[in-house]
């Protein structure tokens, strides 16, 4: 009898020890993972710091709304959603040969070109792989469906919106085929980023979420807010149509 009880108690103790060990192991692993992540983040930060990106750009968001007087102090765009916004290939090529997206110096109304420092091919690759990791968890991939061939009804809807109802081309530069001209012509203003190569630069999901909630992604911008319930300017299907249409510019 005594032997049986001691045997059972031994087995129970061994089980308990095993369970506790597995727990400690799993906790240890998670701690290790976290440590690795923190080390990686610090490494990324150091790389960004060493190149001087943090002098003009910020990488934490969502950015707060700043009163108009203090907006001149902001030197560059906040890149906390760079992973959602830009394509990796575009970032790599752009960092090697930075060409401005708008005809105005960023944050001002002065015509001119701001010279962004260029990087070597290796550094550009490294920095773009870091920038792609900056993502907003609220942006879900796949909200705008990827069509092989865009349906006609969506193209028609987007074209009417883009050219007639809310003429985006009054500020955004773009090549469009107008009724009078046979070939596409260059139209548009200078103050906003151009859509000439938007299909190679942006992601469709970002455009959709930007149109839906511009106060979160660009609180200090010049663009008017569309898609609010007060005036029913843009519905959800409109936003999907517009983002697919903008992505078709290549």
């Amino acid at each position, binding site marked *: 009898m005594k032997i049986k009880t001691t045997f059972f108690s031994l087995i129970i103790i061994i089980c308990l020890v095993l369970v506790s060990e597995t727990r400690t192991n799993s906790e240890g692993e998670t701690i290790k993972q976290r440590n690795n992540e923190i080390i990686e983040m610090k490494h990324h930060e150091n790389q960004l710091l060493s190149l001087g990106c943090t002098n003009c750009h910020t990488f934490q968001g969502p950015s707060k709304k700043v009163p*108009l*007087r203090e*907006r001149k102090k902001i030197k560059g765009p906040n890149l906390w959603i760079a992973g959602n916004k830009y394509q990796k290939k575009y970032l790599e090529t752009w960092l090697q040969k930075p060409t401005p997206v708008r*005809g*105005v110096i960023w944050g001002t*109304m002065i*015509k001119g070109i701001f010279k962004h420092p260029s990087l070597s091919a290796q550094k550009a690759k490294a920095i773009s792989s870091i920038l792609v990791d900056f993502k907003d968890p609220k942006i879900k991939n796949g909200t705008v469906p990827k069509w092989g061939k865009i349906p006609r009804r969506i193209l028609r809807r987007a074209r009417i919106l883009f050219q*007639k*109802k*809310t*003429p985006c081309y*009054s*500020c955004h530069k773009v090549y469009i085929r107008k009724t009078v001209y046979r070939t596409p*012509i*260059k*139209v*548009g*203003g*200078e*103050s906003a980023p151009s859509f000439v190569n938007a299909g190679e630069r942006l992601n469709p999901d970002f455009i959709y979420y930007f149109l839906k909630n511009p106060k979160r992604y660009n609180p200090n911008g*010049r663009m*008017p*807010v*569309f898609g*609010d319930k*007060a*005036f029913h*300017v843009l519905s959800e299907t409109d936003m999907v149509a517009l983002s697919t249409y903008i992505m078709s510019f290549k």
Partner: protein
Amino acid sequence: MKFQISLILILLFTFTFVSAGLAKDRFKETREIFNWHCSQCHGPLGNGKGINNNKRLPVSPRDLTDGSDMSQFSNEDMVRTITKGGPSNDLSPIMPSWGNTLSKEDINNLVLFIRHLCNCKFDPKLKQKRLEQEGKVKP
């Protein structure tokens, strides 16, 4: 009696100075709003020669300094066009709606600022003339 009169006078003076200061601040703020949002098309001076104005635009932005042209719009018309966009007042849709971006106070101040730019007042006869020319009202 003298003391009371002097007190009232001092109070009046302070009130006028404070209100004038507040009005100046508001004027500065509205000018900044104009420079940030409106000057893209209407130009920093409001003469319609902004950066986005080029030959390819179907309708050129309105010259806000032209008094004879601007006096056809009442203050309510201007508030409507700014909040709901050009089509709400039978104008071009290139003028977007700013009702979601700017507050009502800001828009009212902007209308006063535009009145200051054009140095004009609303003339209902001119509005009637325009509507008759466009065929919206029978003469």
